[in-house]
């Protein structure tokens, strides 16, 4: 038993719903009690889909238990097939139905339906949403794909994009364009937009592009093993990763893969002098493993940030993220407990967080700017505009995403120079964000904040001076000073200690 307030991932059957909702001509019959239909709103409200997810819930109630929930399942199954006329159905149980052990798979098998029935075994008390999506897609591919000759032209499948995925809609469009520029056609995109008939055609492609390892890797591995289709290991998020991806595609296909980079603006945006202020900004990165790995590279190599911590919530990615953390000389935080993440962020006091909706809330509480780079996300992170993450346009989009929460270069200096100005002060926040400005309230002196370390005391002068440091670097200054004091065996921080520490850490 584990006490949880907010979760990064839903239960595994929600992962199955992400696959079913992404596809067309597939229906999911879910043995579930009243109330589990809440999951529909993830798709209709958060992602603003204009169709109900193709899911029939058996909706059993207490009075059904012990009488005949099995018949209820069969009726729902038959009704769904009659009403929605799907090409195939997937059947499974939610967490409660798993406990009553009705065996949806066995029940559906005895019904003699004329369409393929794909049973799902998703252990609700062990695994989570991403596993559910990955496993569901794998079972669908395994059940429906048909051996066949390769297409005459060089083609690939794009595997992994689902409903509720982070920017999957636009990533599919961007990568399709990129591959087309390389002279490669897309055979099938799946699950997003694919029908069961399309799944049957998967083995016709020459190779697979694994766009989202979280939700497509099991299927990609199976296709490699069974149909000898290699799959790409690089997810093309960021400038370097996109170039690597193109090289990888070249190696797989033997095609001379070179790409026109005239639309790629990110490198110049990052090297132009207006971006100098980004240098060495301390960032903490947390999300799903794929996006975290991509953003660690972008942050260090393409933005010039300093990565102070990385982590992921999906344990399936723990190993690569730990390895990556080692390479970056930081600790990897593998947890799905947002309180632990908050603790880590508080301790590291970064200048910026790259995270999920959880980290945005943490950042809001701690006063640290946050850019959202990974699922799970809220309705405002499903933008109307085109905003891919992959490919060259994705790199452009990410540059904009990462600088938006920050106070810009010259403004930083002005804030430092005129920090007592009644309009232009710390609490007003970055000037390009609306709705925050508030007139400065004259205070004699704010209550003294708790020092982060128990072993040092801030003398009043030093504490006052600390308050004069702009908010976006104050946390770092406090931390550096305390670390410096501890190293030097100083127990009381004076004005001098503060400036000695500043000189010590100058860069």
């Amino acid at each position, binding site marked *: *038993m584990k*006490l949880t307030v907010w979760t990064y991932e839903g239960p595994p059957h929600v992962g199955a719903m992400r696959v079913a909702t992404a596809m067309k001509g597939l229906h999911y019959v879910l043995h579930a009690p009243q109330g*589990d239909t809440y999951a529909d709103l993830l798709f209709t409200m958060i992602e603003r889909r204009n169709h*109900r997810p193709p899911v029939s819930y058996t909706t059993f109630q*207490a009075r059904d238990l012990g009488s005949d929930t099995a018949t209820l399942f069969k009726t729902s199954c038959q009704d769904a097939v009659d009403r929605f006329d799907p090409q195939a159905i997937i059947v499974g149980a939610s967490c*409660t139905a798993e406990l009553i052990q009705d065996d949806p798979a066995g029940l559906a098998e005895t019904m003699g339906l004329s369409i393929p029935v794909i049973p799902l075994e998703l252990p*609700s008390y062990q695994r989570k949403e991403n596993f559910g999506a990955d496993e569901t897609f794998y079972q669908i591919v395994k059940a429906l794909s048909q051996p066949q000759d390769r297409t005459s032209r060089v083609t690939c499948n794009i595997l992994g994009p689902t409903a509720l995925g982070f920017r999957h809609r636009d990533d599919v469009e961007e990568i399709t364009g990129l591959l087309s520029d390389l002279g490669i056609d897309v055979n099938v995109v799946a699950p997003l937009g694919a029908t069961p008939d399309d799944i049957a055609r998967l083995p016709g492609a020459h190779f697979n592009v694994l766009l989202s390892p979280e939700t497509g890797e099991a299927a990609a591995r199976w296709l490699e093993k069974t149909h000898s289709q290699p799959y790409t290991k690089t997810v093309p998020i960021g400038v370097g990763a996109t170039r690597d991806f193109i090289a990888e595609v070249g190696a797989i296909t033997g095609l001379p893969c070179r790409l026109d980079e005239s639309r790629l603006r990110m490198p110049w945006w990052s090297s132009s002098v207006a971006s100098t202020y980004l240098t060495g900004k301390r960032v903490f990165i947390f999300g799903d493993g794929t996006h975290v790995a991509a953003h660690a590279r972008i942050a260090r190599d393409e933005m010039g940030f300093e990565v102070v911590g990385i982590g992921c919530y999906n344990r399936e990615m723990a190993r690569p993220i730990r390895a990556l953390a080692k390479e970056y000389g930081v600790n990897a935080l593998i947890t799905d407990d947002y309180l632990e993440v908050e603790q880590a962020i508080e301790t590291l006091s970064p200048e910026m967080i790259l995270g999920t909706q959880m980290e945005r809330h943490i950042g809001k509480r701690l006063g640290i700017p946050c850019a959202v780079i990974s699922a799970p996300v809220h309705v405002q992170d499903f933008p109307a505009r085109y905003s891919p993450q992959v490919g060259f346009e994705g790199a452009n989009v990410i540059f904009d995403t990462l600088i938006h929460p920050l106070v810009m270069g010259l403004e930083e200096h002005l804030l430092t120079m005129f920090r007592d100005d009644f309009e232009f002060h710390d609490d007003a926040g970055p000037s390009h964000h609306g709705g925050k400005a508030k007139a400065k309230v004259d205070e004699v002196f704010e209550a003294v904040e708790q020092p982060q370390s128990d072993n040092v005391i801030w003398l009043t002068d030093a504490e006052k001076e600390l308050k004069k440091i702009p908010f976006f670097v104050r946390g770092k200054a406090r931390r550096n000073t305390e670390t410096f004091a501890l190293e030097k065996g100083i127990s009381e921080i004076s004005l001098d200690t503060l400036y000695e520490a500043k000189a010590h850490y100058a860069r």
Partner: protein
Amino acid sequence: MNVPLPPTNGGCRTAPVLKERGQREVFCGLTGIIWLHRKMQDAFFLVVGSRTCAHLLQSAAGVMIFAEPRFGTAILEESDLAGLADAHEELDREVARLLARRPDIRQLFLVGSCPSEVIKIDLSRAAERLSQVHAPHVRVLNYSGSGIETTFTQGEDACLASMVPVLKETAARELLVVGALPDVVEDQMIGLLADMGIGPIRLLPARRIDDTTAVGSSTVFALTQPFLGDTHAELERRGARHIAAPFPFGDEGTTAWLRAIAIEFDVSEETFAAVTAAPRARAQKAIAQASEALRGKSVFFFPDSQLEIPLARFLTRECGMTAIEVGSPYIHDALHGPDLDLLPAGQQISEGQDVDKQLARARAARPDLTVCGLGLANPLEAEGLSTKWAIELVFTPVHFYEQAGDLAGLFSRPLRRKSVLRLEAAE
């Protein structure tokens, strides 16, 4: 006192009800925790359930409103399913940790879920045991918010019903007002009743455990929400008497509700008129303005919160709408009867749900406004129907005179929005 007149073509109390069973597009009772934990400021709601329960609470809340809310889910894991004795030990440990970290918590609700009911974790036994451990500082109660037992707002009912047996006994003739209301609305209600000379007024739920809510055979109680059937039964078991009335939505409902209490407490005509005249006039004016877009329009209710019947009464009698179908998850005659008496005959009353059949009826009827849950709203909008998502009716202050205009406004906004947008491509 002007009594609301029943409709000339007769009310709906005895009208045939279409009862359906099938897929239900509704929340389970856990959802009530979202507003109950704000209402009871010293309470913590600990759901004993699965990852699905935690995910539901997070999704239904829409956003993570509060950094550390006063609710959480003790997520059952494989090992808890294997040995129930261990599950109890684990629960004790989690509760001890929680209470050590949150000394502000004075009442703890152990909330049962579908999985905990199916594997039969006895939460009443756990509550008793934990009460003994943590008394007197913390009171531990339990109720079920599971989907196999409760539909959406029934979660609040189950919660309040669990509190009734532990209320202190009183012989005083007091008014107990039952149902979680936003504080601002509750204060307005208390103000109106106090001005009529009625008091002290006891509240269930009280904002804090130390409050003096008590019950006995001299207690009379009024319900502010139409979904409190079990609480109603528990209070009657304690000897309290229900003051039946239409629910306080709109001018007419509020007046009828207050009047029933006024009669019970022998308030004079003059006093009643003096207290209600000004807010009534304001409510009428606000409703008239806010309901302009609603007059002559039709409405179709999908079952959601049990507010459907009183709201249909408000929309048809005060906002000039006609109802095509009024669906409610459950209909209790003792609670919904007074509203059904006033609801003009003509629409289909339905109880329960088979969502695909009901969608087919709504599509055939093409109502001007469809009141439904979040899972259905956008798909229906995409089919060209205007919708009002029902959960907003539970999350927004809508009771009594001063909110009557806002209530009408909640229904008219989708129609107004449709009329102001100019997004159609040129032909």
